[in-house]
């Protein structure tokens, strides 16, 4: 049986590659937040409050990002997932 396990174990992706994949995502996320200005969290909060006056959404339905496309151009990207109509 050990021999069968030996061959079988080669097929599924290793746990280390899973760890690497997860870390690459989380680190990229951390680093994108790191480059944002200090007022950013507050601004994001206020944008959510404004939207909330009209539509009820939760914080995780809103993503706000700054993309530095080239040296002179930063793009503020606001992404709101609206709740499904009931």
């Amino acid at each position, binding site marked *: 049986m050990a021999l069968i396990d030996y061959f079988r174990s080669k097929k599924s992706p290793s*746990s280390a590659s899973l760890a*690497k994949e997860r870390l690459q995502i*989380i*680190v990229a996320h951390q*680093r994108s937040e790191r480059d944002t200005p200090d007022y950013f969290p507050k601004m994001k909060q206020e944008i959510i409050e404004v939207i909330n006056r009209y539509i009820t959404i939760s914080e995780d339905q809103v993503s706000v990002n700054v993309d530095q496309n080239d040296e002179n151009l930063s793009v503020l990207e606001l992404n709101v997932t609206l709740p499904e109509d009931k």
Partner: protein
Amino acid sequence: MAQIIVVTSGKGGVGKTTSSAAIATGLALEGHKTVVIDFDIGLRNLDLIMGCERRVVYDFVNVINGEANLNQALIKDKRSNNLFILPASQTRDKDALTKEGVGKVLEDLSKDFEYIICDSPAGIEQGAMMSLYYADIAIITTNPEVSSVRDSDRILGMLQSKSRRAEQNLEPIQEYLLLTRYSPKRVTTGEMLSVEDVEEILAIELVGVIPESQAVLKASNSGTPVILDNESDAGKAYSDTVERLLGNNVPLRFLEEEKKGLLKRIFGS
């Protein structure tokens, strides 16, 4: 001017104090006058790892508060004339470390020493922030494991925004990755992140890889920095790390699983 090196990680238990003790001892053995400072106020342990716990009279906080001078608080290492230890206070709280106070002590030490090693506490609170604030070089101690790698990345963010060099727009802190508790065998079987994986994720220069080793516990049991165990793999790996810090190009060792000979395979090790 002394070089200020912070040994940091974010996460606890990854080997900051072991590494601080080993690197400080290694630099002293190479003839550089070195002091190693414990920034873990309230939870001091560097004194134990260095084997000088019974010689602590005054500490870092006493010096900051002017209750003792540096010469009274510095403990001279028994094994090297070039090495001194500045222990943390065991009773005060972490807020005893002020930016001004720490700055003054480091400035005074800079006059006498070539290297100042700051052993950071875990976390990102006052003690940790003060240990990295004045650094010229940072050694990011990391285990090949998800939470440690993520915390290391957080600390990199702090070094790039909350340090003196960042605040004053000076040349940034030199960041080095020190991978500890590395197990080549588990990397081979795909259970552990490899050196290349962690390098790729954190994208900073590698300064050393310390293999998971029985020698580390043995060294801490006896209060002897593991670098002095020059028979051991961890001791040799720390010596190599010190060489690289000094700018010497030394190839990495202990990245491959030790090949067992036929007899060892049959009869066990």
